[in-house]
């Protein structure tokens, strides 16, 4: 089966050793392996300690070392906004952002209270007046920005999945379709989100016209940019997964004269699920990276815009706040990857194949 040359994007799943050591939920061997482990603990603590050291100790030491080097190096670099912030400055800005979030929540509560009073006064004046509940008009807090980004990335990712999985299956099942799609996949896969963005922005503002739109235009623009960039890993891996199904299985399906849909849902999909999920994980990772860039450039609400605004503010706290955002982006990206990994092991039989 000739698939796009670099189709094997199946990166080896990096599992922290803690998790590797813990019995997987699907592993039938788990129940059997438990009693011996316990007796081993009674006899000799060394393997336990070694596991603990490897899973917790080494990363902890590495992190401490990293923080140390960071705080040392940062104080030596002078920018026009002051020194590069060290861990302490970043931590204090994290607290500041949280305090800011709480203060803004209080302001929001006060806003709703004022609105209620105003509406009540209006009703007292004119009982027929139409009262509409207005949303809070204040700024989104840092926490709000994180959730906006998450919503956008999931919307884009969902759209990408809906398109990519069927296309991938078609490519995997038929060499003709694969050959037809291959040039496009090769051509568009390496395109950066920044190149798509102006086109998407213009298209969205031309085509998505309504008096009372359900989604903000900026949201649609970001989501579609994410879709365009995160399609490809899923398409390629799905195609590979489908194409590499055991020939025997397909032959059996032929002998049994299974219908198209039965074959698809009982055979093709289950057999290629592990690779589809590998593709989805990569797609979500790409989508998350793309989203930040597109928010920055298109001024769409979210973490990307937060960073851009802080850069434009140029205050003495800006660099530390941007650093908080960088760490948040990394952490959220990590959580997304773990979530996808969890899904993958839920949906595939026998963990990994």
């Amino acid at each position, binding site marked *: 089966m000739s698939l796009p040359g670099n189709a094997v994007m199946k990166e080896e799943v990096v599992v922290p050793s803690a998790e590797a050591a813990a019995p997987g939920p699907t592993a039938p061997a788990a129940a059997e392996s438990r009693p011996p482990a316990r007796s081993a603990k009674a006899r000799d603590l060394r393997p336990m300690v070694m596991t603990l050291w490897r899973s917790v100790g080494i990363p902890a030491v590495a992190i401490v070392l990293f923080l140390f080097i960071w705080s040392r190096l940062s104080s030596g670099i002078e920018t*026009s*906004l002051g020194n590069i912030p060290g861990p302490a400055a970043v931590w204090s800005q994290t607290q500041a952002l949280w305090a800011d979030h709480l203060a803004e929540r209080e302001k929001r509560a006060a806003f709703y209270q004022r609105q209620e009073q*105003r509406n009540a006064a209006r009703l007292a004046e004119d009982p027929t007046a139409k009262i509409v509940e*207005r*949303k809070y008009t204040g*700024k989104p807090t840092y926490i709000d920005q994180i959730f906006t980004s998450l919503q956008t990335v999931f919307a884009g990712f969902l759209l990408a999945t809906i398109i990519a999985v069927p296309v991938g299956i078609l490519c995997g099942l038929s060499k003709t379709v694969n050959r037809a799609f291959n040039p496009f996949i090769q051509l568009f896969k390496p395109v950066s989100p920044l190149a798509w963005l102006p086109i998407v922005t213009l298209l969205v503002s031309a085509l998505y016209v309504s008096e009372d739109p359900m989604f903000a*235009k900026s949201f649609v623009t970001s989501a579609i940019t994410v879709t365009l960039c995160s399609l490809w890993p899923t398409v390629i891996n799905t195609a590979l997964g489908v194409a590499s199904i055991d020939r025997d299985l397909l032959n059996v399906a032929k002998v049994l004269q299974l219908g198209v849909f039965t074959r698809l849902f009982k055979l093709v999909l289950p057999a290629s699920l592990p690779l589809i999920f590998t593709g989805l994980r990569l797609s979500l990772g790409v989508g998350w990276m793309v989203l930040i860039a597109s928010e920055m450039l298109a001024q769409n609400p979210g973490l990307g815009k937060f960073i851009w605004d802080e850069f434009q*503010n*140029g205050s003495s706290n800006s660099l530390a706040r941007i650093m908080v955002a960088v760490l948040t982006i990394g952490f959220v990206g990590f959580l997304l990857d773990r979530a996808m990994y969890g899904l993958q092991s839920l949906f595939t039989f026998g963990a990994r194949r």
Partner: protein
Amino acid sequence: MTRTGKFFGAVLLAIAQLAAAAGAQAAGLKLEKEQLKLGFIKLTDMAPLAIAYEKGYFEDEGLYVTLEPQANWKVILDRIITGELDGAHMLAGQPLGATIGFGTKADVITAFSLDLNGNATTVSNEVWALMKPALQVDAKGKVVRPIRAEALKPALDKFRAEGKPFRMAMVFPVSTHNFELRYWLAAGGINPGFYSPTDVSGQIRGDVLISVTPPPQMPATLEAGTINGYSVGEPWNQQAIAKGVGVPVITDFEIWRNNPEKVFGVTKAWAQKNPNTHLAVLKALIRAGMWLDANNGANRKEAAQILSRPEYVGADYRVIANSMTGTFEYTKGEKLPVPDFNVFFRYFANYPYYSDAVWYLTQMRRWGQIPEGKPDQWYQDVAKSVYRPDIYLQAAKLLVAEGKAKKEDFPWDSDGYRAPTKEFIDGIEYDGRKPNEYLAKMKIGLKGTEKVENGNVVAR
């Protein structure tokens, strides 16, 4: 007085009271739209918007306003046109430029000038070092201000000798900053370059190459060496001092005393569809302007504090406070009083004068953005279709009726033209009624029927 007379009087009084009450009722405008999104650029002259929000003036009018920072002026204009923004902090030249179709064509109007003055021109440390020996100093060794653009010549000569272009930045082709920078340079005998219909770079025959950079990126671009100087609003000149990347050489107050600056712009269609909402927004903005200028700027410190929040301008308080509290730091430590650096209400600052609009149009003509000569009447017609003092006065009238503003603070009888003034750096008199006569007085710049063709100024 007879008994019936007394009774009649009482009835009349009661009717009058009722009418007064009804008047107060009418003051609560029937709003076409309550939820608004207004855009702004991170500059201190967006202050009236922030203050109207923070002090609850918008809410007093029953408006639910969200303020949203925008990336640059082009984005503001585009989003106003697409309706993503209801109104915005805009450059005075933007509604005019859009209406006459320089750049994006759209009908945008303004009924409110946000402020007077507030800009400055900054050069890099390298250029400042070249300028300094030629500057006049007084007995105390202080540099004599205003610094005229002639002082730039040693730097220009050195750049030319080394074969390097001298680059300066402003924020938008039709921005006040562009016209002020060009005015200053031309007054010093330096050609800032022309626009033509086929070459909109604005660099034709220029002794310096002027291009566009968004305001908040100015200090970083200067530091990177991409540009050698820039003209921008605050706090980005004070930021250059704070960061030590450049030196402000002249404020726009010194180029043209009390020049009109930003405006609050909306599309014509929006204004027609939402007349009461428009009035309500203006009322809130007028009150914000009053607050900003109240008691000789007693509130300015608080204003600077509000503006330094990340959701507004976001620069450090000390940087914003420099210019917002009536001073300006020219070189490190050299902080001079400029009490009128930002004017938000005094001197009828908010009244959208036709003569201000005409001045911008003359500058567009002078540098070729308007490629062909136009009769005086054309200037007046455009000004009157874009600048709308009638709407402004309507809002002011409502405020006076509510007792929230004083009658004498508004120029009720103005015909929309300021008195002719000579308060420019080169002393040339400007009369808004005679734009062509004004243009003819300029040494550098298009006048009469002149045109830019194939990179040359040709008379027709």
